[in-house]
């Protein structure tokens, strides 16, 4: 029989600023885990399963150690240090941003009330679901990127991949902590499932679509960290506003770490574009395969693909659930506190595009029903910043070609465009027109195979693959040619 205690678990009671992380514990944390033996035992029971998962589905390339960033505090001052660490000994832990004892709910029908330190019974199922969805994405990307180390363009990039991987693992810990601490037996069962679903598994895939797409090569990895991890940034940004304070504080700290993932994507694509621009300039053609570069037209195809699958992650433009999450205080909007409205939205409307009679038209809908679209709009605006950065590299090289974001309706499977074909320029197409042109817009298996041929590992100090330029500076003020990764085989690096 399920008891109340089983269903609610024993929530820890954070006590004021606890920015220093206790690394003497088996599970590093700043939530006072040692004072809650029951929760500590439960998480220590989950820890070996996580390590098994990491060994089985984490990075496949054997390494001795990696120059990694590890969080040591959560405050505004220094919060991390860098050192060579064997990845299996990385200190995955539980870190919440500092508590503000005066924090109040910033939106919805509970606006102005004290933030919740416990899960209200009426929101228990919805909150657990939000945490499970977020948690499911974290290990998924590690699984997707498992074999990428075998074809790393440099030790610098290899290190960045592994930094992303260990921090996605830590983000899984962050969600598992919430499930264990606040959702009792059901939470523990969901935490188990987070290790049982696997990316691309036919029987038990990861929940969100883009997290089941194979990461075939490093260009896709950079596109993934730019576009798909950016969706994660925006989802975390909405959960950071949650009335459920432990979730808000967890997500706030995760966002700090997430910035590095954005950096990897932005600069990875940029360095690829820079090398492509050099080769185009040098040889006077976009057909630079024979010179070891990736044509700009193919970079655009990769961009089209990753942007469109990432747009689907935001769900349908209109969603009753999204509106309910907002009204209930579970999930806010991006930069909620900076919005200049009443933060309740009951009487607000906005426009949204949809397809009607073969045309893209606008209609007015209640803002509350279209909060997925609100978040997606913010995301698209952010995405365009990176495209401007990449186009600056093309302009600096003296080229006239430019990259662009495809239309929001392009290649969509979720939402109002799902049943329609829309070109990257926003033209609604019939099946025949789509089929005739789709290979111009999305990477074909042959395109991916051609990129894969360029993916040859470069593990020498300061060595870089020919399809990408070296970065301007190294990590943590180290030189670019620093020994960021020591491979397991002696003498390889």
């Amino acid at each position: 029989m399920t008891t109340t205690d089983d269903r609610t678990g024993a929530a820890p009671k954070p006590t004021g600023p606890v920015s220093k992380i206790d690394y003497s514990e088996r599970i590093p944390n700043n939530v006072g885990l040692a004072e809650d033996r029951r929760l500590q035992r439960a998480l220590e029971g989950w820890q070996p399963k996580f390590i098994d998962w990491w060994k089985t589905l984490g990075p496949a390339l054997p390494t001795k150690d990696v120059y990694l960033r590890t969080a040591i505090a959560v405050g505004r001052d220094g919060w991390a240090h860098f050192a060579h660490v064997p990845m299996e000994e990385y200190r995955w832990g539980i870190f919440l941003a500092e508590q503000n004892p005066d924090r109040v709910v910033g939106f919805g029908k509970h606006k102005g009330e004290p933030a919740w330190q416990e899960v209200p019974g009426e929101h228990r199922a919805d909150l657990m679901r939000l945490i499970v969805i977020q948690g499911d994405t974290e290990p998924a990307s590690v699984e997707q990127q498992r074999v990428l180390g075998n074809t790393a363009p440099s030790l610098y990039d290899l290190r960045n991949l592994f930094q992303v991987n260990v921090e996605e693992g830590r983000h899984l810990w962050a969600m598992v902590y919430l499930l264990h601490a606040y959702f009792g037996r059901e939470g523990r069962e969901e935490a188990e499932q987070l290790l049982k679903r696997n990316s691309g598994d036919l029987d038990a895939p990861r929940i969100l679509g883009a997290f089941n797409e194979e990461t075939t090569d490093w260009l896709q990895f950079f596109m993934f960290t730019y576009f798909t991890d950016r969706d994660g940034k925006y989802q975390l940004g909405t959960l950071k506003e949650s009335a459920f304070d432990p979730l808000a504080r967890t997500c706030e700290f995760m966002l700090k770490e997430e910035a590095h993932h954005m950096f990897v994507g932005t600069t990875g694509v940029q360095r690829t574009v820079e090398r492509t621009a050099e080769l185009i300039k040098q040889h006077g053609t976009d057909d630079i395969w024979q010179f070891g570069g990736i044509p700009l037209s193919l970079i655009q195809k990769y961009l089209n693909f990753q942007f469109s699958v990432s747009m689907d992650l935001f769900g349908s433009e209109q969603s009753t659930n999204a509106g309910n999450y907002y009204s209930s205080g579970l999930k806010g909007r991006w930069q909620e506190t900076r919005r200049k409205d009443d933060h309740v939205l009951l009487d607000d409307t906005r426009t949204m595009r949809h397809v009607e009679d073969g045309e893209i038209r606008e209609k007015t809908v209640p803002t509350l029903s279209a909060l997925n679209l609100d978040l997606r709009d913010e995301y698209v605006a952010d995405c365009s910043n990176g495209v401007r950065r990449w186009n600056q590299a093309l302009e600096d090289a003296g080229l006239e070609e430019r990259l662009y974001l495809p239309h929001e309706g392009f290649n969509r499977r979720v939402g109002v465009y799902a049943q329609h074909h829309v070109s990257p320029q926003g033209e609604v197409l019939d099946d025949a027109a789509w089929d005739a042109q789709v290979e111009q817009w999305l990477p074909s298996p042959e395109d991916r195979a051609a990129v894969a041929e360029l993916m040859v590992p470069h593990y020498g100090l300061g060595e870089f693959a020919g399809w990408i330029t070296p970065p301007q500076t190294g990590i943590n003020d180290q030189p670019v040619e620093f020994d960021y990764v020591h491979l397991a085989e002696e003498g390889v690096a």
Partner: protein
Amino acid sequence: MSDLSWVHEPNPTWDADKRRVVGSAPAGVFDLAYEDGAAIPGDWWACTSAGAVVGYGWLDATWGGDAEILLAVDAAARARGVGSFILERLEDEAAKRGLNYVYNTVRATHPDRDDLHDWLAVRGYRGGTGDTTLRKRVGAGSSRAVRVAPAATGGGTPYDPAGEGELAPGHEESGGYVDVDDHRY
């Protein structure tokens, strides 16, 4: 019933048929309150028999990858396979959209929540111990064959070419590098 049809509503609005069918459910089953003629979110389908609406199914994709499914059957048409018909169609529709899972949340206020739980369970829906949310894998293999979107307000820090030159992270030891809301990348 063997004469059931499945009709998509491209621009669903709250109307007399929905009021009749959804309204025939006992109190506590649904939480829907719309004015007549109001546009309603989500993908909606009507289930008809001999030209009359006997049920509705609708799908709410809150995130891409799974969706909540809901269904309502006219009280006068229950126990004739309408619910199963709608459930199967909704699973097909979700799979066609590349969604991996569908779920249904059995509301605490549902008067027949145990029966509904069992009805979903025998159709492949699974949940945790409390079983408030039951999930089912639909479809298999979501791989795809694989105008510039409008800029909205906000959206992070605009790219400033003049700010170039210090791309690398590594100042976390002394703070800096990360503004949670305004990532530079």
